[in-house]
């Protein structure tokens, strides 16, 4: 089934994710998909969860950290400045930790705990995940296209929600136990029960869990969500998405399909080309295209040609949108 047929077979599709190895053109393909929906009258936003922000380069407009920006009719984009979210996190965490230490009567300096809690590598992923969930929950768009970070980041991003959930369940449970003991032991029960209801640690943990649950529900909804894998017709990126697909499946995230980018059109041969360089390249590509079809049978949604110029600016992005719509099956 080509890209067009796939999209038409899922009228409820709203959340599209694009992943793949570094440098395969995820951003370009994601941008093309966003434009595809925008051209069909859907109010569409493309957002990057990539720490190296590339939307600005593809659209040739500096949108970094500027919030949601309109690029064209029905087409919006946002590049989150993660450092802001991380700073906000640190402040919140400090507040909670202090509150926790106060209620638990632990005479300890929270400084080192804060440092440990906020300088671990998952922190940025958590911030990105949060920004992403916020965008979804605000519900201001018809279609959301996420240009995800390279595989390792996305994997941690996906894994995070599971770990988050375990950690939150644990936190909520121990907090409830502690608070109920406190209520039992106190003389003025009513006042303490009131206090417990306002407990900041418990409140924020419950709130966070509600949000991750909502996000998880959306991410695993087969009608609303699809994860696309972008590859080049080369061995390494193919191997990467092969692994990637099994991970995404393990998290119950619906697989949308594979998009092959940077395809040398075989029409190059028809131009009576005798260039051995081109012939070798095409022969190599043919082998990899066969591998792709063997490894991901009936999952290829589109072949995007290698263009004469780099995909930069709306005109080129529209070309990619057309290529997605066309499927490019005649290129190979």
């Amino acid at each position, binding site marked *: 089934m080509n890209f067009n047929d796939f999209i038409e077979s899922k009228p409820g599709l709203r959340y599209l994710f694009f992943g793949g190895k570094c440098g395969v053109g995820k951003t370009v393909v994601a941008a093309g998909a966003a434009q595809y929906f925008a051209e069909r009258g859907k109010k569409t936003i493309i957002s990057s969860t990539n720490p190296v922000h590339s939307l600005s380069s*593809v659209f040739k407009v500096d949108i970094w950290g500027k919030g949601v920006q309109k690029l064209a009719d029905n087409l919006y984009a946002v590049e989150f400045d993660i450092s802001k979210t991380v700073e906000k996190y640190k402040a919140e965490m400090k507040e909670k930790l202090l509150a926790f230490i106060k209620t638990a009567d632990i005479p300890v300096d929270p400084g080192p705990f804060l440092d440990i809690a906020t300088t671990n590598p998952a922190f940025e992923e958590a911030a990105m995940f949060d920004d992403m969930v916020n965008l979804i929950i605000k519900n201001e768009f018809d279609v959301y296209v996420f240009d995800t970070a390279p595989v390792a980041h996305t994997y941690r991003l996906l894994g995070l929600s599971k770990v988050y959930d375990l950690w939150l369940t644990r936190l909520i449970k121990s907090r409830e136990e502690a608070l109920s003991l406190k209520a039992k032991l106190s003389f003025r029960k009513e006042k303490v029960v009131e206090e417990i209801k306002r407990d900041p640690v418990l409140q924020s943990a419950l709130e966070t869990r509600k949000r991750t649950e909502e996000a998880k529900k959306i991410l695993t909804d087969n009608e609303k969500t699809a994860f696309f894998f972008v590859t080049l017709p080369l061995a390494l990126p193919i191997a990467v998405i092969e692994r990637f697909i099994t991970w995404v499946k393990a998290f119950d995230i619906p697989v949308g399909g594979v998009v092959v980018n940077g395809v040398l059109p075989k029409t190059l041969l028809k131009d009576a080309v005798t260039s051995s*360089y081109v012939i070798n390249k095409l022969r190599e590509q043919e082998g990899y295209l066969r591998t792709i079809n063997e490894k991901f049978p009936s999952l290829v949604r589109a072949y995007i040609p290698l263009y004469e110029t780099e995909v930069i600016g709306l005109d080129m992005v529209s070309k990619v949108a057309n290529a997605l719509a066309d499927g490019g099956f005649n290129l190979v």
Partner: protein
Amino acid sequence: MAILDTQKAINMFKEFGIPISGVIVNQVYPTELLNDPSTPEFLKNRILMQQTHMKKIRELFGDMILGIVPMLDREPRGLEMIGKIASILYGGD
């Protein structure tokens, strides 16, 4: 885009005081292809586009550029191809 990313990375490394040894440019089309009459227009245009990027790279990174690896006519896999790259980069025997 890769040029921008490299620039960002270099600045980040500098901030952390990590020494930078240099820049290696990968997947550079051999310029001989431009003189080869059998090279299709399509590829020639890509090479010309790349040459403007190379100019930018030279401007930005200058003597930090330690090596240039050509876009070989197939993906470098296996010891033989890796050896080819090694000799291009490090001038093996």
